[in-house]
């Protein structure tokens, strides 16, 4: 009987990824070239090797225990990052970056005045270096054409 550990869950995820990958690699149209195989050849070779290694690894001992608290914290962090990122075309790059900086500085318990100064200074420097010198064009906030 398997004990549910983080490592076991990770291995299950690896095997699931393999099954999806292998299934998709069988679906490619076989526009074969002179070698007699199509676009699925290389993915199928990888799938077979991957399966052999993954199945051997699956039956080795699992060590990493499941740490519910740490995983929940990580999930929370990712949600906080993903929501503004999803709306970046409306909020604009500068606003989203400032939001991240302010939030991360807050998490790290940097005093509020210092936090604001660091956030603004970083955004201005990023603008000068990446937009003015390296000529990047960041997504703008929705009301700027």
């Amino acid at each position, binding site marked *: 009987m398997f004990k549910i550990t*983080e*490592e076991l869950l*990770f291995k299950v995820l*690896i095997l699931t*990824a393999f099954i999806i*990958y292998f299934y*998709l*690699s069988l679906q*490619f149209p076989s*526009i074969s*070239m*002179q*070698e*007699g*195989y*199509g*676009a699925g*050849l*290389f*993915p199928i070779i*990888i799938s077979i*090797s*991957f399966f052999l*290694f*993954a199945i*051997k*690894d699956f039956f*080795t001992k699992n*060590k*990493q225990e499941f740490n519910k608290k*740490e995983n929940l*914290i*990580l999930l929370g*962090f*990712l949600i906080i*990052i*993903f929501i503004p*990122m999803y709306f*970046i*075309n409306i909020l604009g*790059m500068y606003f989203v*970056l400032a939001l*991240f*900086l302010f939030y*991360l*500085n807050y*998490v*790290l*318990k*940097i005093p509020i005045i210092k936090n604001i100064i*660091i956030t603004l200074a*970083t955004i201005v420097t*990023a603008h000068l270096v*990446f937009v003015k010198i*390296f*000529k*990047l*064009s*960041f*997504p703008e906030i929705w009301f700027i054409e």
Partner: protein
Amino acid sequence: MIDLLFSNLNFLTISLIFFGVAFGILVSAIPGLTTTIGVVLLLPFSFYLDSASSLGMLMGVFVGGMAGGAIPAILINIPGNPASIVTNVNGYPLAQSGKGDFALGLAMISSTLGALIGLIILFLISPELSDFALKFGAVEQCALVLLGLSLVSALSEKSVMKGYISMCFGLMVATIGLDPITATPRYNFNTVTLQQGISFIPVMIGMFALPTIIESLIISKDFKFPTLDKNFKQCLVGVFDALKEILQSKFNIIRSSVIGSIIGAIPGTGSAIAATLSYQLTKKIEKSDNKDRFSSQGVISPEAANSSMSGGALIPMLTLGIPGDPVTAVMLGALTIHGLEPGPLMISSFPEAYYGLLGSFAVSVFFLVILTLIGIPFFLKAIRIKTKYLMPIIFVLCIIGSFALRNSMLDVWIMIIFGVIAFYMNRNGYPILPMILALILGKILEEQFRMSLIISLGDPFIFFKKPISLTLLIILGCFLSYIFVKFLKKVINQNKNV
């Protein structure tokens, strides 16, 4: 011949080379910005400058860029470019043990020496080496990449099996996008954005940087980057110690530089494979009980190899007109802007330009020494800022660096997703280096593998019929047998103990 080397140098050219080296170091020290981006950014200036000045400047970026990637790799465990993909493996622990100045000294001096050896090889045997490189067709390249990937995966410290799983995962990710031969869309889930594939730059940034950021920000808040409370003079003592160490590692430098030059001369291989192959070889050869001594060799080897690769990569570009990597492809464009035609006749048709370029390379190496040695105390000072102030800024730089690659938010998402994957891979003992290397080399491997099969009309034994690929496969076979025997011995010993 020697006169021609420096005949084009004037004050403007020398100043631009100096600027190029400084710019190259700066660009590659920012994770996400590569030497290629640096060269592309300066390419438009070629239209307004004479050929010697513009090519000198681009050469400076090339040479500076190869060395600069080691700075963030050693100080914050994030390689600045693919060339420094293995420098952090030993460089970062050295910095953590309070030897940041020593580790940077090792990286910079070995980079300089590597570039110098690359230049000498370029100057002396470029026609012969380009003839040898021409023998590397699809079959040989495929065998070489396979050897490199297998070596890296098999030498993973925690578990060979996990190393190979990581490599297969990288190869899986590399197949996303258009098939290189028939242009069939693969694993793009009917989206246009995924058709162009997953670039390794955001993956590399995410996988190296994000686990550290997650660890420090949300898991253990007492995480600190290695700092060094030394003044300028004390830092120079560390650099002097590095010089002494390098003087005792002459064979490592020469071996790694020769490997770098040869790999560089083979079109399409790139700096990552030069650095990893020479690193793995050093790991096998340099057996020392002294951990610091071993770590030093692990920094010296990839840095010498990736810098000498820049000389090697110029060989096929100048003598055959075939660029060895993306940077030399851009430089080829710069040469044609000035009406120069690289190829077998370049030395006889444009001797001034050919030797002038080698002269610019030599001057770039000279400026590289000065800039990096003076710069070490300043790089260390930058890292002396408290980790809690640095982490959020690094996170923002990772986002911008990923976005900068193609002006695409997709790359930012990729960076974050792969960062989280790397966090769990690290926790569960799966090494991330084989995955990144497989992603970088996966496309080359598939393309050359399929090309080989097309050439042989579907005969897979083609790999055993060509002498170079057969030799490479025999080396691979011997190596894998050695790993297997070692594994069997371990199992037998465990059973005996039970």
